[in-house]
């Protein structure tokens, strides 16, 4: 990372000679990175880690799609296939989607957006990165020794008594990584409560902060429950301390309750920060205040609260009582209300805005469309009758990929593109980045839209082969996945390219408002040269000023 800043051995030109000190060039060397307590550098460390895991998880996804190109199991047998889709799920959920936006963008932006020098607990922040990697090491060890075949859900009694794969090592990895998530979430809550700049009241906070705060609440309340659940699985497997074993009178459905008590809110850990990113992007590229700011802010908190009351919808066909199922069904539909508030308010923000279609905005618009499809199919699945029909089919797979990939990853990439000039001080190629947004959007839809149809026609998930009549749709899906893969690889290449060869971005290439844009790009180690004092709301775009700036400044090359 630091090589980009170190790339000028002899500052000859006036520009480099007077390069302002920033967090990248403040101090050099591997040690300065591995022992850093700067939230911005820790964000970069996390960026590297989660990118590696995203690549690994994508590789597993590619194997799954390749196997499903033909009805027969010709690339791999059922045992291998079980391991591949399990590891795809585990890596993507626990090591990419959950940490991605909070640990990378959140770490970088929370202190900048609230006008603080750092997070409240910088050492804990660094520790969280190490804990993440220690947990990841356990899981990677399991993967390279043959993997796990339980599905990412670890359902008992298969995981506790029957699976002959590395369940304990994988679960231990997730257990440990959970602490890193807790450390980050706890740090954010304390920071947002105690470190805000003078004048930065709660209703002057950017919506990204609100959604990060709501996410952190879920992390703090939910993650310990998955920790104890996985510990119980481990205790049963290793020590025979069985509490889920049906042979002893244990209840596997209790495991499902405990598992989903965390793992359903975990979906909101993934999507809430994404919603925060979208609020920022929509405001910045429509040059408008976010419509209904307070509604969007409270919708985040509402989703966090409601998210804890809907876990039972994963067990509609697992022997849950019809009364419980009905209540969970209704509560699940209620989550659509705050989600819809957000979508409508983003749309209303666009109305009569000065919209510019920069790359981050393309990702944001893609998000709004895909998230809406994912959300509406979620309401369908919350309906008892439909869920029984499509339970454990590709309909479900398509639904949650629309939320997690179409939602979270679109927002993550959009956010990276938006704040990349802030992170690196460099610009990336405009054409290629717009192309990547387009490829991701098209590739994504081609991959997962056919899966809705497949599921509705009855193709079950988690099988390595399928009846030949499903082949056409599966070929479409695999073709889409290859386009999606290209779309994901482009940013990787041009971001790395831009660090060395990209044009300097200037402090605020988008002309956006917000405390993070009030400092230099990249920011100095302590973020601000003079600590900011806040006197207005987060999205105060002066229409006249915006117009002048847009007409005077050349568009990004």
């Amino acid at each position, binding site marked *: 990372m630091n090589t980009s800043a170190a790339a000028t051995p002899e500052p000859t030109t006036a520009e480099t000679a007077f390069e302002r000190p920033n967090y990248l060039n403040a101090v050099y060397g591997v040690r300065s990175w591995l022992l850093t307590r700067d939230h911005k550098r820790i964000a970069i460390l996390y960026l590297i880690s989660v990118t590696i895991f995203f690549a690994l998880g994508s590789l597993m996804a590619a194997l799954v799609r390749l196997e499903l190109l033909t009805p027969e199991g010709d690339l791999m047998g059922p045992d291998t296939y079980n391991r591949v889709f399990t590891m795809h799920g585990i890596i993507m959920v626990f090591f990419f989607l959950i940490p991605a936006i909070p640990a990378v963008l959140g770490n970088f932006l929370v202190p900048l957006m609230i006008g603080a020098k750092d997070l409240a607990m910088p050492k804990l922040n660094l520790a969280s990165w190490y804990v993440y990697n220690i947990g990841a090491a356990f899981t990677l060890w399991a993967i390279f020794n043959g993997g796990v075949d339980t599905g990412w859900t670890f359902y008992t009694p298969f995981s506790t008594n029957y699976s002959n794969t590395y369940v304990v090592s994988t679960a231990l990895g997730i257990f440990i990584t959970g602490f890193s998530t807790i450390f980050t979430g706890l740090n954010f809550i304390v920071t947002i409560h105690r470190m805000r700049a003078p004048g930065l009241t709660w209703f002057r906070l950017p919506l990204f902060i609100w959604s990060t705060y709501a996410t952190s609440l879920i992390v*703090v309340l939910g993650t310990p429950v998955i920790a104890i659940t996985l510990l119980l699985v481990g205790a049963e497997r290793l020590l025979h301390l069985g509490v889920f074993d049906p042979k002893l009178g244990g209840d596997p459905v209790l495991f499902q309750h405990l598992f989903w008590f965390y793992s359903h809110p975990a979906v909101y850990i993934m999507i809430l920060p994404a919603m925060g990113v979208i609020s920022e992007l929509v405001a910045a590229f429509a040059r408008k205040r976010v419509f209904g700011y307070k509604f969007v802010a409270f919708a985040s908190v509402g989703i966090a609260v409601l998210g804890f009351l809907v876990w039972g919808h994963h067990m509609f066909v697992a022997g849950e009582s019809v009364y419980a199922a009905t209540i969970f069904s209704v509560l699940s539909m209620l989550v659509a209300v705050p989600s819809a508030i957000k979508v409508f308010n983003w749309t209303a923000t666009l109305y009569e805005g000065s919209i510019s279609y920069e790359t981050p905005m393309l990702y944001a618009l893609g998000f709004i469309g895909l998230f809406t499809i994912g959300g509406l199919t979620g309401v369908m699945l919350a309906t008892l009758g439909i869920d029984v029909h499509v339970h454990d089919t590709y309909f479900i797979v398509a639904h949650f990929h629309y939320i997690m990939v179409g939602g979270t990853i679109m927002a993550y990439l959009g956010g990276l593109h938006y704040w990349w000039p802030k992170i690196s001080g460099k610009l990336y190629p405009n054409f290629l980045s717009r192309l990547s947004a387009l490829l991701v959007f098209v590739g994504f839809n081609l991959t997962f839209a056919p899966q809705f149809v497949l599921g509705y026609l009855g193709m079950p998930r988690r099988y390595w082969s399928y009846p030949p009549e499903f082949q056409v749709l599966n070929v479409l899906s695999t073709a889409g996945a290859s386009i999606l893969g290209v779309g994901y690889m482009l940013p990787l290449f041009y971001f790395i390219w831009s660090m060395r060869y990209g044009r300097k971005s200037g402090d605020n290439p988008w002309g956006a408002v917000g405390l993070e844009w009030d400092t230099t790009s990249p920011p100095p180690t302590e973020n601000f040269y003079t600590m900011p004092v806040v006197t207005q709301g987060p999205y105060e775009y002066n229409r006249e000023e915006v117009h002048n700036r847009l007409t005077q400044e050349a568009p990004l090359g």
Partner: protein
Amino acid sequence: MASSPLAHGAHHHPALAHQFDTMEQQKESSTLGMWLFLVTEIMFFGGLFLTYVVYRSRFPAAFLLASNSLNVLLGGINTAVLIGSSLTMALAIWAAQVNWRKGIVIFLLATIGLGSTFLVIKGFEYHDKFVEHHVPGPNFNFVEENPNVHIRQIAARDPNLGRHASIFFSLYFIMTGLHATHMVIGIAVLIVMVVLSWKGKYDARYYNPLEMTGLYWHFVDIVWIFLFPLLYLLGAHAAR
């Protein structure tokens, strides 16, 4: 960045971290962080308590009989020991508040001593359970080897009694084991605190880490206050 206009506390205490403006802000932050951590601990043990409630309501007879095989006397002594350790912990913080540096060390050492006593007694209890074959697993035997005739009579009517009792003992070992793990971590932290107090790092002006350690220690204590009746005192009177 030392010229920040906001960083003008009365004067800079050496323990003030760079990201904070004042000692009060630092103290408030660590206190809030510690309480949030305790919230995660409540949720962590909460999952266990929920599991316990589900199975106890499902298998009340097995839980009662299995509970009666625990040693109430040792459990009771341990409860007293732990409450005592919470007292010495509180006294250590009081010693800091009145600037009695030697007292901090003395009371912290007393806390470590009482915590260790708890663990030793717990070890004896575990040993007894191993000897009695009450540890779930291949050698688990609650019914046939049990000297209590009463239990064998009940088991004749309820053939699943032993299996359900094994769930009680699984929960007993996991709950008390995790509690003991927390004690070990707490004692490790206390040892660090003793060293730092010995070096004179804490006094009436700054004793934040001591207070945070105390919060954690009291929390672990309270978990035991819930564990003791749930595991040891299930109808202890009913057996006799």
